[in-house]
């Protein structure tokens, strides 16, 4: 049974003083020992600087890579070991290669029934004359969709890494000009002739992806190269009229979602043995082979935009 004390009474007890002393709230010597008033602490900038210098000197001595014998020895050892390892790897791989079946023979295990099926039924089932295009955009279209997304994700990551805000971007543009010949007459004249040809060639490669060598990836890269040349010759002011961050966003969004929806439809009808409304057309005509032509265009747009975006972001940290 405990008695209830008032606050004043409690403060006079021994326990209260003991616990207060224990927790250090009151200095037991204060008022009983003669003390000098303490000076207020003032940071000394010179001492701080000296300490920093000492720290730096110690760190320089500790991590003195140029005069460290063990470091040198380790470096030499590392180089020798890596060269030996690579020679060993070359020998190992060459021995392995020497046991592989000979190049150019039909009996290699790679030439199995899968590729036979692609060659024999490819024209009939996809309508594409270029068997590779029929393969990557019809039989293995999911693969290509994933790759387009890899490009998109890579652009976004580069944007995260290199993005600058507005004032920094202006500064970067000024720096950019210092190293770039502005309004170079020869470059502009050559670009006036070359850019339309390059872009038309890229469009030709994309549109003929199912008829000959080429397709979305190579055509898109050619168009992107043309855009980069245009940008180099005429500067950002001209390209910003038709290509901004918004353009990139919407082009990529529409291309990728169109690819997704179109391939979903064709996989759905194919898996359920339904009749697809997309006509195959006559092989060899430009409007043929079902979905391959529009898918090539979608992939080409994504690749061209990605390459231009890479270049613009490396140049000035934004579109």
């Amino acid at each position, binding site marked *: 049974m405990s008695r209830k004390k008032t606050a004043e009474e409690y403060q006079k007890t021994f326990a209260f003083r003991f616990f207060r002393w224990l927790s250090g709230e009151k200095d037991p010597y204060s008022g009983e020992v003669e003390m000098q008033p303490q000076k207020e602490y003032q940071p000394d900038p010179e001492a701080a600087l000296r300490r920093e210098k000492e720290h730096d000197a110690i760190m320089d001595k500790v991590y003195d890579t140029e005069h460290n014998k063990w470091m040198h020895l380790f470096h030499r050892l590392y180089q020798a070991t890596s060269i030996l390892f690579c020679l060993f790897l070359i020998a190992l791989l060459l021995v392995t290669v020497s046991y592989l079946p000979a190049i150019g023979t039909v009996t290699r295990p790679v030439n199995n029934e899968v590729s036979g099926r692609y060659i024999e039924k490819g024209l009939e089932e996809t309508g594409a004359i270029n068997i*590779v295009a029929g393969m990557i955009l019809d039989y293995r279209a999911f693969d290509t969709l994933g790759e387009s997304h890899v490009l998109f994700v890579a652009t976004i990551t580069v944007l995260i890494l290199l993005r600058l805000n507005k004032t920094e971007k202006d500064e970067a543009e000024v*720096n950019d000009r210092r*190293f770039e010949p502005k309004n170079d007459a020869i470059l502009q004249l050559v670009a006036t002739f070359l850019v339309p040809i390059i872009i038309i060639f890229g469009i030709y490669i994309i549109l003929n992806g199912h008829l000959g060598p080429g*397709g979305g990836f190579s055509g898109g890269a050619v168009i992107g190269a043309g855009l*980069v040349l245009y940008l180099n010759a005429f500067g950002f002011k001209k390209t910003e009229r038709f290509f901004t961050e918004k353009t990139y966003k919407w082009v990529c969004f529409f291309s990728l979602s169109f690819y997704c929806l179109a391939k979903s439809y064709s996989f759905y009808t194919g898996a359920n043995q339904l009749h697809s409304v997309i006509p195959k057309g006559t092989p060899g005509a430009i409007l043929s082979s079902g979905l391959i032509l529009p898918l090539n265009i979608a992939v080409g747009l994504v690749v061209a935009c990605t390459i231009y975006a*890479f270049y613009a972001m*490396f140049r000035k940290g934004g579109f």
Partner: protein
Amino acid sequence: MTAFQIILMGLLIVCAVSVSFSKNLLNAILIYMSFSLVMSMLWICLESPDLAITEAAVGAGITSVLFFVTLKKIHAIDASEPDTKEEKENE
């Protein structure tokens, strides 16, 4: 055709080795560019024209341009470095 292929492959190895031994970064990038061009010729020999077009546009064109821009950016950072140092000292 076989002799041509062997010459091209020898060029590939020469290019790859000389990248490691070139002191100048710009030289290394140019040698890599020629490596890609030789590669795209080799794709034609191996009967894959799709790959040849893609390699010529992507490997020799876009990749080297990206390398060049990186080099230029690095030089630009170097040139603007004194300014940032002065700012730091002023702070």
